[in-house]
């Protein structure tokens, strides 16, 4: 067998401790993820489960202190990002790793024109990748590229829009600009943190479709952070379900959504009303996400789990493969019937 190519992104056993006023909180406890080019991963869970911090950890944007990484690796094409100097890391941001934040209303600098913001990102990326802009004066080339990108994300009369201010755009348009900004450096990996939560429903669908299309065209690997199983179902090829700092279930979307094995995954899916959920039949998970300052030992989901046993409270179950790329961290999973 030839040596395996390293995956685009591999996160191994990532731990993150956050210093708070009331002591250290163990925010991430052993996150593991492998993402190949062309895959769209949904990272799903409720607020406070560590999805955003996982996403921010890849381009190393979590401020340290208060954060601290006791263990773990984040490898991009085999290169461990945690070991890089800040300088080298900066060269990767925007150029190899693109990022889209949750709220398009606040993610653009209000005091700079759209075109200048796009061009600045292109110029920064071109410092490390001169081929990006092509010949000619850099500033002009950067603006031309900015116009091309705006056009690609579906903004009409892109050239004129370069001189617009962010506040002149609607929420959906701004998110399109942010997608253009994230992709202008031609990254291989795109991380999008709740890119549609702040938008109206029809616009959400458009933006998701746009992101899917761009990812497919460029062969991007993508992490889509979301709290909505519906978004995962609509847009992702793979899903990783997070609970209280670690991944409890992972696999292809079709596998996980059709045969959820972890009680939390099942609960998350059962808690969202679908088009045909009869009134009064929604199954709500009792309780709330545990306080990470005093997280229970063993399985962190045990206090809310209908089938927890003393063994669950004693030791944390590792992620175990179930076949077909599906894995679950649970001592008593629903055995998915593979045929």
């Amino acid at each position, binding site marked *: 067998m030839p040596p395996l190519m390293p995956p685009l992104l591999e996160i191994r056993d990532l731990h993150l401790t956050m210093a708070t006023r009331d002591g250290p909180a163990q925010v991430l406890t052993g996150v593991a993820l492998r993402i190949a080019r062309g895959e769209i991963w949904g990272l799903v869970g409720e607020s406070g489960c560590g999805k955003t911090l996982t996403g*921010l950890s890849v*381009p190393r*944007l979590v401020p340290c202190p208060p954060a601290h990484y006791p263990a773990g690796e984040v490898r991009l094409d085999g290169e461990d990002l945690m070991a890089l100097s800040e300088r080298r890391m*900066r*060269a*990767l*941001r*925007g*150029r190899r*790793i*693109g*990022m889209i*934040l*949750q*709220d398009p209303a*606040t*993610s*653009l*600098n*209000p*005091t*700079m024109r759209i075109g200048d913001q796009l061009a*600045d*990102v292109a110029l*920064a*990326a071109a*410092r490390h990748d001169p081929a990006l802009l092509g010949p000619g004066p850099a500033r002009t080339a950067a603006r031309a590229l900015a116009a091309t990108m705006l056009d690609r994300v579906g903004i009409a009369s892109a050239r004129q829009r370069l001189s617009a*201010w962010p*506040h002149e755009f609607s929420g959906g348009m701004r998110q399109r600009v*942010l997608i253009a*900004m*994230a992709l202008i*450096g031609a990254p291989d990996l795109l991380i999008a943190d709740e890119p549609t939560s702040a938008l109206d429903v029809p616009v959400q669908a458009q933006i998701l479709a746009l992101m899917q299309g761009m990812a497919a065209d460029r062969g991007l690997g993508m992490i889509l952070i979301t709290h909505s199983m519906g978004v995962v179902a609509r847009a992702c090829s793979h899903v990783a379900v997070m609970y209280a700092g670690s991944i409890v279930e992972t696999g292809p979307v079709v596998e996980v959504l059709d045969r959820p094995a972890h009680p939390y995954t099942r609960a998350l899916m059962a808690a969202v009303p679908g088009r045909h959920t009869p009134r009064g039949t929604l199954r709500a998970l009792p309780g709330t996400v545990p306080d990470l300052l005093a997280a229970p030992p063993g399985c962190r989901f045990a206090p809310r789990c209908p089938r927890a046993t003393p063994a669950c409270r004693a030791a944390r179950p590792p992620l175990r493969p179930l076949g077909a790329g599906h894995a679950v961290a649970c001592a008593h999973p629903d055995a998915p019937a593979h045929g």
Partner: protein
Amino acid sequence: MLRFLLRRLLMLGPVLVGLTAIMFVIARLLPGDPVGLAAGPNATQAERAALAQEFGLDRPVWDQYLSYVAGLARGDLGRSLMTRHPVAEDIAIYLPATLELVLAAMALAIALGLPLGLLTALWQNRWPDRLGQVLAIGAISVPRFFLGLLLQLVFAMWLMWLPLGGQLPVVTLPPPRVTGLVTLDAALAGDWATLGAACRHLALPALALALSPLAAILRMMRASAIEVMAQDYVTAARALGLPRRKILIKTIGRNAVSATLTVIGLYFGWLLGGTVLVETVFDWPGLGLYATRAILSQDMMPVIGVALVTGLIFIAVNLAVDLAYGLIDPRVRYE
């Protein structure tokens, strides 16, 4: 934009009339004997009556007020009992010195306060920042006149590096008057020796005056820079690999300055009305000294005039701040 400016200028009229009314009420309704003070202890009853009549102080207050407002429209600020000059002329003499002092102090405060505020925000909660915060609170807490005395003591009396007070050495002829600001006039005249002397005289009072606005600007800049740094667009800029210098200046700096502008405007106005103490300490021939002398002799016309002029400049500065706001932040609309 033009309409905005026009409307703000139109508002000036009522503001001036209102301001005059307030000062008149205070100046005229309180007990006091300005005529007696001006005429001197040995004046006869007839002399005092003549003086009162000459300055219109024998007429009812509302009548005095109306004629004052009428004069205001012509740029007439009344006449001083003390100097017997028209107040407008007196102010034209004393205002430039105060302006020079305040401008120098504000320039110093802004030039140091903005970058230092940005830097301490970057070093948030590390020792340079904490030290900076304590020093800034300390700087706001020093009485300006005590600071002035200390500066005189150390730099003028013990070290003898800088002059004790005044605007120019007694023997130096002031440069030909163009703007009234001695430093500027000297530079315009190409008289470098005088310019040097003027700057040496300006240094200590400007420093004494600059310290507390410097600290206030630093603190405001730090606070708003910290607020800006927590914004998504800063995280986004970092996530997209923008160079640090660009993030610092274009993203954080620009957005933080717009909040700090308000403080700058407020302090400018506040300094204009608050140079009195520093001018007293340094014998600086400015509006503050003029006003103090007038106040001590209960000579109200100069006081009202000074209040009006400083109020007017205050309004102008704040208008400028509003306009600068719009230059920095495109979301601001002039309506």
